[in-house]
């Protein structure tokens, strides 16, 4: 059991901190979920990338620093402690990139990753459909074979970032005749501005277009944009979602910083007794999440793969994020209802946490069936 970082990792932390001190915008950027804010966040990605801070864990040839998992966690601690902006490239960096590293070709990595690292190409995810949410394998959007590629037909929805993003990735049914719904799916990347794509932005609770519906009408996708073997999409996507729920989607640094800000807010409000327990519990949960993640990272560095345990992770951070923001709004008294308050954007975002990336009910089923060995039953 060793919780100390190596001197080299601490030096890396110092470099990250110094860079962030010098570059993090003094005033928060406009909301990521507006056209203006999206552009400002895209410019921030470019600024990060110019000094190779946007994807520190990636190999150098794609714009990273070969920093490894532990330094990525260190970077994230510094990043969120510095109050740096949310990451508009998150979907691509956290979901698509790990898939490309595991299943993509070298040609795909060389083509897709560098512009992802700079924010030049921002990615949206295209999983859900109107009739396929928690039961994702029920999806019906088709990929039909054609000369040199595929034609996409169907309807995707709840596609995060798609209102302003450039490209998307998701699952499509390439073989409708399989025995089980999880078979015959293909993992594809496509251009949101290609002929046949209609993007209809959807306003989330606060009205901002944080996601969109995608109508796909014979959209051509070349073979080079298929990831892995056609028909193997489910397995590939599930390994991506294990990453999403596991280590890479929500780093502990984010919650450590939020919890520290919550304690600051609590003290600034005169340390009221009504919120005392919740503030202490948020600090403890953020620390627990950090240590849980260090343990998981240690196992990964030992060669283990994260499996169903990442489902516990997703339930934990999504509930922590919500509790943290609810406590902050309660501490603000009458100001807590202001839509332009410092905690409002984060609060609205946190409300979606238990729903996206597999609802928390799906996660609890996975924990019960795959970690505890309980029998499958009706959902």
């Amino acid at each position, binding site marked *: *059991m060793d*919780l100390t970082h190596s001197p080299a990792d601490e030096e890396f932390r110092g470099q990250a901190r110094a860079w962030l001190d010098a570059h993090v915008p003094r005033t928060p950027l406009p909301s990521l979920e507006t056209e203006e804010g999206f552009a400002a966040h895209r410019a921030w990605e470019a600024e990060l990338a110019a000094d190779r801070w946007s994807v520190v864990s990636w190999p150098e040839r794609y714009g990273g620093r070969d920093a490894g998992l532990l330094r990525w966690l260190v970077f994230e601690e510094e990043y969120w*402690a510095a109050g740096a902006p949310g990451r508009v490239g998150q979907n691509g960096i956290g979901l698509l990139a790990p898939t490309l590293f595991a299943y993509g070709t070298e040609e795909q990595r060389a083509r897709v990753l560098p512009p992802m690292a700079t924010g030049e190409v921002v990615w949206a995810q295209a999983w859900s459909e109107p009739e396929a949410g928690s039961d994702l394998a029920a999806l019906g959007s088709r990929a039909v074979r054609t000369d040199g590629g595929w034609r996409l037909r169907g309807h995707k929805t709840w596609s995060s970032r798609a209102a302003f993003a450039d490209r998307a990735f998701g699952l499509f049914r390439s073989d409708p005749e399989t025995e089980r719904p999880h078979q015959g799916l293909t993992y594809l990347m496509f251009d949101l501005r290609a002929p046949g794509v209609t993007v209809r932005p959807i306003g989330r609770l606060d009205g901002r277009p944080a996601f969109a519906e995608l109508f796909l009408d014979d959209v051509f996708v070349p073979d080079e944009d298929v990831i892995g073997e056609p028909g193997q999409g489910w397995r590939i996507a599930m390994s991506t979602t294990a990453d999403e729920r596991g280590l890479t989607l929500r780093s502990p640094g984010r919650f450590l910083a939020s919890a*520290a800000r919550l304690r600051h807010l609590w003290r600034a409000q005169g340390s009221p007794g009504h919120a005392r327990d919740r503030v*202490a519990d948020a600090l403890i949960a953020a620390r627990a999440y950090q240590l849980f993640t*260090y343990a998981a990272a240690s*196992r990964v560095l030992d060669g283990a793969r994260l499996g169903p345990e990442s489902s516990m992770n997703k339930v934990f951070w999504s509930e922590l994020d919500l509790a943290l923001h609810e406590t902050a709004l309660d501490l603000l008294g009458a100001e807590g209802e202001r839509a332009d308050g410092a905690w409002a954007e984060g609060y609205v975002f946190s409300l979606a946490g238990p729903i996206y990336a597999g609802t928390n009910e799906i996660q*609890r089923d996975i924990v019960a069936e795959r970690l505890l060995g309980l029998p499958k*039953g009706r959902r």
Partner: protein
Amino acid sequence: MRFLLDSGQRAFADALHAMLTAADTPAVIRSWSRGDHARGRALWSRIAEAGVFGLAVPEEYGGAGPHPVELAVAFVELGRHAVPGPLAETVGAAVLLGDPPLAERFLPALASGERPATVAAPGGYALDGDAVSLCLSPAPEGLYLSTVTPGPVRRSLDPARRLARSAPGGELLAREAPYDRALTWIRLATAAQALGVGLALLDRTVTHVRRRTQFGVPIGSFQAVKHRLADAKTALEFARPLLFGAATTLRPAEVAAAKLTACEAAYRTARTALHLHGAIGYTAEYDLSLWLTKARALRSAWGAPEECRDLVLTDGLQETDGQPEADAW
């Protein structure tokens, strides 16, 4: 940075688990609850032989310590088997008596298991004071070797915990004793014990809901049942890294956070275990009760939730804690 138990530590846990499984602890617990300490003392000796108390005792006094991580590993197993007796208190006594000349006088017998000890919480109880000859009472004027007040001990919600009171005065062993450090070790041991209690409750309940059939199917196939167990599992698995983080740093606030979280997770698991067992779980006769009642008792011992939260709020949880406040929003 390598935040994992090594193979030696895991093997130590496995060996203790095997030894305690063979020891039939439910029978030992039940006789201990009746005030018959013979079987409990025999088990105590075996736990000492396995080196558990020596983890809090330096080598020169017959131990192998201090090894707080291994101690936490061991106490998870003691909790998993609901071993009775002043276990955490004996660890606390080892710390209180850790300086010469007291160390020479007391520690070898404590490490060898010959002499279990208890510590009277200031203003509180001396756990199992009727079962030991070494009862320490920290007081403002120093550390006393006390006797327990005569008469029957008070009953705890956990029948295996016997609540004695130390008599005032006694032999003044030292004018100054490291009480805060001892409290940190007792809390760490209690946190580990609680985690073990919670893990045992979860295991037993998972076994039960897989076997128990209603409406023609195992009740463990119902989502309402699954989700309660998934939440218990998650709470316990997030308490675990706090426990080992606290054992690694030994910072009082980290230990308090671990104590609070492990006890909370164990207690929530106890509520789930009771509910999912139905009426049979509500009986004293069924062995589940031995863990159910301990989960509640440990929550109150050596730092109730509010006391632990106080430490977290005043001391903070990590070296860099509070750093973002400089430029808070």
